[in-house]
């Protein structure tokens, strides 16, 4: 073994810790990191805390009144003596507007996200993105005011024509597309030639006329509809969809961007058009992220309070027929916000606790949605990283 004695110039033991210094360092590290750990844990514990306190105040309701009435009855008369607490209609109302807003926001949001990430040139994207972000920045009470004071009267006075216009704008292009596709399918075969072309045009023409007749017929039927009250499920669903839109767009867009250039370039290199690349390659790869985005949008819609409180009509009943969006409904969030003022006077009664039961329902549903979307996102990240 070689001689390990060294001679340095200065301070030979400068970097050696005395036990004292070591202890002081360990203490400083313990307290410093310990403090940060406590703060971080506090944030984490708050969630459990919230869950606990809501549950603690929700359970007495189920102890007093059981589960059946809450989930199966539509008689909601909390102020009566004794009160009736059938929340089925209210749960149905929440579900109705959530699904309604999802039906509008999901296709709109996904196509907007695709547009932003793949279709639009950069210069236009600079302006389009802030517009979507602005929709997110508008406070819910402003949306509620708009829904109540401006949109509701509009629906009430011009309901029929609005529905008709919406029908034309949305269904029109789809129907015409269907016509062209069907015409192609019918007349498809090998080869071109002007003969075949004439046949194709005739078929398209006939189908087109049929389609236009269909569009007019439905349009006129819609035009004749009288909306009795502007504060209804349709109003709320529409406004909610624009509130959920930014969430869906931004998370979907992140997901599409995460797919990366290589996959797209591979598709283009094979001669695919942009639409084909997006629909057949990019979308499937980003599908789980987009699903997560949709779930987050749904979470946003179901948790919204102000808009539904101001513009849903707050009528606790299941519409007749069940799909009638032109009827007033009531949601869980609006019930909690609306009834708590009275219920708080009688703390300890079923009336007070039932609102916490509703809160618990909302909380549990949101947690489930969150966990599911987290799982999906993590899984997609792993898949993409592994590729």
């Amino acid at each position, binding site marked *: *073994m*070689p001689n*390990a*004695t*060294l*001679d*340095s*110039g200065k301070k*030979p*033991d*400068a*970097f*050696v*810790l005395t*036990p004292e*210094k*070591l202890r002081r*360092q360990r203490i400083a590290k313990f307290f410093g990191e310990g403090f940060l750990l406590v703060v971080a844990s506090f944030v984490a514990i708050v969630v459990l805390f919230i869950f606990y306190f809501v549950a603690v105040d929700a359970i007495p309701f189920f102890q007093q009144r059981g589960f059946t009435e809450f989930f199966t009855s539509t008689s909601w008369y909390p102020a009566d003596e004794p009160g009736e607490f059938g929340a089925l209609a209210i749960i149905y109302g929440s579900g109705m507007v959530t699904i309604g807003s999802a039906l509008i926001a999901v296709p709109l949001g996904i196509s907007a996200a695709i547009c932003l990430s793949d279709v639009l040139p950069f210069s236009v994207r600079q302006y389009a993105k802030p517009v979507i972000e602005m929709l997110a920045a508008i406070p819910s009470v402003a949306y509620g005011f708009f829904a109540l004071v401006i949109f509701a009267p509009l629906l009430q006075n011009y309901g029929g024509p609005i529905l008709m216009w919406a029908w034309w704008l949305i269904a029109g292009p789809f129907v015409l597309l269907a016509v062209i596709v069907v015409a192609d399918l019918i007349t498809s075969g090998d080869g071109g030639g002007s003969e075949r072309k004439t046949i194709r045009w005739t078929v398209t023409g006939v189908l087109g006329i049929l389609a236009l007749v269909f569009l007019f017929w439905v349009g006129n039927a819609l035009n004749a509809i009288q909306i009795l009250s502007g504060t209804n499920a349709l109003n709320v669903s529409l406004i909610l969809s624009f509130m959920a839109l930014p969430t869906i767009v931004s998370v979907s867009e992140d997901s599409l961007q995460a797919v990366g250039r290589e996959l797209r370039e591979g598709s283009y290199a094979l001669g695919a058009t942009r639409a084909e690349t997006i629909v057949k390659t990019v979308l499937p790869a980003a599908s789980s992220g987009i699903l997560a985005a949709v779930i987050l949008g749904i979470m946003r819609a179901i948790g919204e309070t102000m808009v539904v409180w101001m513009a849903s009509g707050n009528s606790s009943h299941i519409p007749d027929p069940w799909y009638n969006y032109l009827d007033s409904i009531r949601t869980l969030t609006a019930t909690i916000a609306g009834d708590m003022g009275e219920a708080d006077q009688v703390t300890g009664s079923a009336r007070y606790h039932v609102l916490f039961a509703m809160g618990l329902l909302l909380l549990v549903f949101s947690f489930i949605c969150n966990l599911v979307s987290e799982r999906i996102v993590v899984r997609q990240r792993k898949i993409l990283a592994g590729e």
Partner: protein
Amino acid sequence: MQEVLKKNPTEKRILAPRESRKTIGNITVPKPRMVCRNVNVHYGDKQAIRNVSIDIGRNEVLAMIGPSGCGKSTFLRCLNRMNDTIDSCHVTGEILFDGRNIYDASVDVVPLRAQIGMVFQKPNPFPKSIYENIAWAPRIHGIVESKSDADEIVETSLQKAGLWEEVKERLDQPGTSLSGGQQQRLCIARAIAVSPEVILMDEPCSALDPIATAKIEDLIEELRTQYTIAIVTHSMQQASRVSQRTAFFHLGDLIEVGTTETIFTKPSHQLTEDYITGRYG
């Protein structure tokens, strides 16, 4: 390399076979600065450095060469305990500096790194002014107390790094506003400012153009008189230009150590010869 070999063709030397992983050559030096014995490094389950022992001499430049992934950077980072910052990295063995094993539990790594400095592959000046880049470390170690002390250290360090003339008019500009070569010299000046004994350099010129590289190589030669330098390099030409001793690593083993001239003209191990003649790399 080829010419050198042609001048001294492989005479009747018996080269150690490729399979042998034992270190060939004299690992010791008289009055070494740092002594490494039986150093093993694991990243999780993977072993990156296998039982390496070597001395680093006083005021010498030791070059560590070898193909990519052979562990030379990993070994260099052991010398100032930079591997501590990687969670999965586990180092065993002895590395003695001033008579103490730097991996001893009683060693404070903070002042240690003031004595064993490091220059990285990609120049990484702090996003602060040139002045602050140099003055920051002496200040936190307590080496400077007043502004005049700091001024002095800044000037001395920049002069030693051969950068003073170029930047003395703009010390308040950000370090990142310099060119690549200047940034690297700034990093060298920053390392010098805390008066280290040893300077570790991890491929310092790989991100620089040839002119900047030449300036830094001249600088290394000047610095040798005051400091001990261990340099990892990808370029055999660079190793032969700047170093006195060379260590050849291969897949985590130290294959051969010797004077630079010997290694490049009369290597004793088949792997060494294969590497320097460019048979693989």
